[in-house]
């Protein structure tokens, strides 16, 4: 018992006894509902015993168990009992509140009670799923139910809050996910800020040649979308822009963005490229990022042929004007539109939006991290993205698949799962590599007549038309060898010929195969700065570093932060159609939010009891949401309920106990603790 000490050692007012009514309040009548969750709970927890024990607790009028409390009849049970038995408190022992708190609050409200006269007990994740011993798991479930029953006595009627929602939406990332989401929202009549870190939108998809399994030309289907973005009256496109800070809350985010200087005025430049021709560098000298380093460009350049905006930029790290200040500035001379400004500076801007869609994408696995494949050592070992550029008609070789020495390859090996499905690098399956590897096999075969070997562990081709494509590539005579390449060895005198050792697991033998080109099907992984971005936007990452969805099945595009949605590969590997579908879903969620016009917020906020507060200011710097102000005139702290997220930091810190938090009042917490500890 916590308060046996008696005098001076506990709250001296407001301490109520279990089940007893307080000054004229009606007697407490609690209904306890224990869910079987099919066999999820019932297999390990003796729900009948939990129900029986719950029925014996003070204040409990009725205790029932039911197979699926979340089902309609389950909810109906609660509603009817409230009406017929006059219940005024509801406890449901089932799964995680994350999943069904809303459901049961709804049922409580449907019965005519304030929905906050409800308490949920998680006997699935906290008992049945994590224990094996039935007896002990049942005891634990009983303890948890007792805690909730004791707590719910002290619940109060609370009201949810409504806040208006700003109609603008921010889309972060201009790949196919961001583009699709932005267009859907803009077509829905909402204003969209689309921001992109790079100089052009288009993302990874713009680098691809053909898309699987239909072999559509990626540029042909993407470029029109990019242009639409550029021309849409409802879209403000900002390239070379990054988010530095996000303040506010759902419906009212204040986003600080940083525009990096391009040294070109976007509104003046028409992309005529005369400046590039005029540059003092006669030839390209720096690796072209868009061509995955396979071609060279000048310090002033157009990001790529289809770039949107069709505007050049200057790399200050490479341009002589920036390093020496003594360039002849031939580019400036050549520009008819006087669009070049060497003195452009970084610019900060604040955007007010109601919702945010994250579409920050992925990066490919760095093949150097699998050193046995010799990437970066042997010139004819390529990543798949490099080969995408090689097969692309607008790529560095004009679509010719040639080796570094200009020769056509005669034998090409494609290694699946590079960096993926490996405990030492990325344990997950990157989902798209099997299909893109088959696509590359097809394209290489089509363009070179080379022998093509696909080395795979499992061929994963679930998707519409995918299996048929696999069949087609197999019928073209590509060698499909089930086994992972163990080592690559460039012979001493073999003209760059590579020997790969692989177990052909279907044949049960190791094969040593000479190839002159080796393509590494690098997997997808979270961007290097995903953790930093996650913090900025206050969302969560799953253990593997991808942004985490609110629920893997029922809320796959939501995050745990209201008003922030996920689209595309920032949430996990996906192919293009899936990305576009998810972008549409994210846009839909944002539209639904904005369309509602207001947001209902949980009432679990904290308040300062003004007459108790002594104005000691301890709480003020602690609030992570800057929700607490000091009222100088009254010398009191004051909490802005709209900003408060109910984290409880101020409540814990207040040295005189003058801040209380709805749903987490001291009496509620103490009763819960005593309930758990009162082992019976």
């Amino acid at each position, binding site marked *: 018992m916590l308060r046996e000490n008696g005098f001076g050692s506990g709250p*001296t007012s407001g301490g109520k006894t279990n089940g007893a009514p307080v000054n004229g309040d009606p007697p407490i009548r609690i209904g306890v509902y224990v869910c079987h969750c099919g066999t999820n709970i019932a297999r390990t927890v003796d729900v009948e015993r939990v129900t029986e024990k719950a029925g014996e607790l003070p204040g409990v009028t009725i205790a029932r168990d039911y197979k699926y409390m979340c089902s309609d009849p389950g909810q109906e049970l609660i509603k009817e009992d409230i009406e017929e038995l006059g219940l005024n408190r509801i406890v449901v022992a089932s799964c995680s509140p994350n999943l069904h708190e809303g459901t049961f609050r709804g049922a409580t409200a449907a019965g005519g009670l304030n929905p906050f006269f409800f308490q949920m007990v998680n006997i699935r994740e906290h008992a049945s799923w994590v224990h094996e011993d039935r007896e002990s798991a049942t005891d634990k479930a009983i303890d948890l139910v007792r805690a909730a029953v004791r707590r719910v006595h002290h619940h109060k009627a609370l009201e949810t809050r409504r806040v208006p929602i700003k109609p603008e939406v921010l889309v972060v990332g201009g790949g196919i996910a961001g583009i699709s989401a932005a267009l859907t929202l803009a077509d829905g009549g909402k204003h969209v800020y689309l921001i992109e870190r790079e100089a052009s939108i288009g993302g990874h998809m713009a680098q691809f040649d053909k898309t699987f399994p239909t072999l559509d030309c990626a540029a042909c289907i993407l470029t029109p979308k990019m242009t639409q973005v550029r021309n849409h009256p409802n879209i403000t496109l900002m390239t070379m822009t990054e988010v530095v800070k996000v303040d506010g809350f759902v419906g009212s985010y204040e986003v600080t963005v940083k525009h990096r200087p391009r040294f070109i005025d976007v509104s003046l430049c028409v992309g005529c490229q005369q400046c590039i021709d005029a540059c003092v560098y006669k030839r390209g000298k720096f690796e072209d990022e868009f061509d995955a380093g396979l071609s060279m460009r000048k310090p002033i350049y157009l990001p790529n042929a289809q770039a949107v905006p069709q505007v050049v930029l200057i790399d200050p790290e490479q341009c002589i004007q920036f390093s020496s200040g003594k360039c002849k500035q031939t580019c400036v001379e050549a520009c008819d539109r006087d669009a070049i400004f060497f003195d452009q500076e970084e610019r900060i801007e604040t955007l007010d939006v109601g919702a945010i869609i994250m579409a920050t994408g992925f990066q490919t696995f760095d093949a150097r991290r699998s050193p046995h494949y010799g990437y970066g050592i042997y010139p004819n070992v390529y990543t798949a993205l490099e080969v995408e550029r090689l097969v692309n008609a607008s790529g560095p070789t004009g679509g010719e698949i040639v080796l570094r020495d200009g020769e056509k390859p005669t034998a090409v090996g494609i290694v699946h799962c590079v960096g993926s499905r490996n405990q030492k690098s990325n344990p997950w399956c990157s989902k798209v590599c099997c299909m893109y590897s088959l696509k590359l096999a097809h394209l290489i075969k089509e363009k070179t007549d080379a022998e093509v070997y696909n080395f795979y562990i499992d061929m994963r081709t679930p998707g519409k038309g995918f299996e048929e494509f696999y069949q087609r590539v197999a019928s073209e005579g590509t060698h499909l060898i089930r086994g992972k390449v163990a080592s690559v060895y460039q012979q001493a005198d073999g003209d760059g010929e590579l020997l790969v050792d692989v177990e052909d697991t279907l044949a049960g033998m190791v094969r040593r195969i000479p190839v002159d080109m080796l393509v590494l099907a690098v997997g997808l992984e979270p961007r290097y700065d995903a953790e930093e971005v996650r913090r900025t936007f206050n969302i969560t990452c799953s253990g593997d570093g991808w942004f985490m969805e609110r629920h893997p099945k029922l809320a796959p595009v939501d995050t745990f932060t209201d008003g922030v949605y996920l689209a595309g590969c920032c949430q996990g590997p996906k192919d293009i159609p899936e990305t576009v579908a998810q972008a549409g879903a994210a846009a839909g969620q944002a539209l639904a939010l904005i369309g509602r016009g207001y947001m209902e917020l949980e009432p679990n906020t904290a308040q300062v009891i003004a007459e108790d507060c002594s104005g*000691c200011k301890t709480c003020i*710097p602690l609030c992570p949401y800057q929700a607490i102000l000091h009222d100088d005139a009254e010398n009191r702290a004051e909490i802005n309920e709209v900003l408060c997220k109910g984290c409880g930091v101020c409540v814990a810190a207040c040295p005189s106990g*003058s801040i209380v938090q709805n749903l987490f009042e001291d009496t509620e917490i103490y009763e819960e603790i005593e309930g758990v500890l009162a082992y019976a």
Partner: protein
Amino acid sequence: MTKPEGKPKVAFYWCASCGGCEEAVVDLAEGILDVVGAVDIVMWPVALDFKRADIEAMPDGSILASFINGAIRTTEQEEMASLLRRKSQLVIAFGACSQLGGIPGLANLYDREGVYRAAYLESPSTENPEGTLPRLRSRENGYDLSLPGFYDTVRALGQVIDVDYAIPGCAPHPKVIQAAVATLLSGELPPKGTVLAPDQAVCEECPRRESKPLDLSISEFKRPHEVIIDEETCLLAQGLLCLGPATRAGCDAACVCGNMPCSGCSGPTSRVLDHGAKAISGIASLIGGDDEEAIDSVLDGIPDPVGTFYRYGLPASLLRRKTLS
């Protein structure tokens, strides 16, 4: 409650304490005359010669109020507390020792043997070559002598008998005593369990309150003898560990006005379960420093955490002592 004939009877008693509480009553100065005039004192060992038998002879409930100061450490104190409980309509825990266990309660960090060793054998001023320790019974010059039993654990009054109200402080501030007595005599009694003092923190009464910055971040705790203390500025802002924000008001921030940090003698407000824990949580939230080393060095400035945060309330706190064999 029944009002007896004549002036209401009042008793004072003194358990394990320093005597400061008795002084506090005297400190009422001329105010004491009002009190004395209004009541009939039936016991006050420090000032008047009444015996235990006198009280025993009184009918139960015949005393209106007993003011008991000091913690309960011996069997005699427990007996007297129980006796006064029986004879009184109201029992008031008077002062920090009685309310929360007080300074004597810090002995709960040790056991009886440890206390005996320190007090009778090892303290530098002790001369006790035979190693004599207190005994319940002894024989001296043909007489049988007895001493009260000495408990292993010091308890607050409320942990021994039922207590109605408390007057906080070490010692209680005259203003608080006067207000409390006035309340009791008014006949309009507050709910049982009330601490008869303002339910806000000391900061409320502190003249330096406004000088506390909004974004205080403490990088070093200093002890009062180590620094010249500015007389105007918030003591926490000067790096002195002041428990004012976590301590009940009523004292007019007397210590702070004397340029010393609040040490927490009035205990917590009614809303706080454990004074020390709450104070730690409040003070800890002010500590600056990002890395473990910096935080360690800030905390090194608090050499005696229990003596700092539980100076007056160890027995009444949630902290439990080790099980004694």
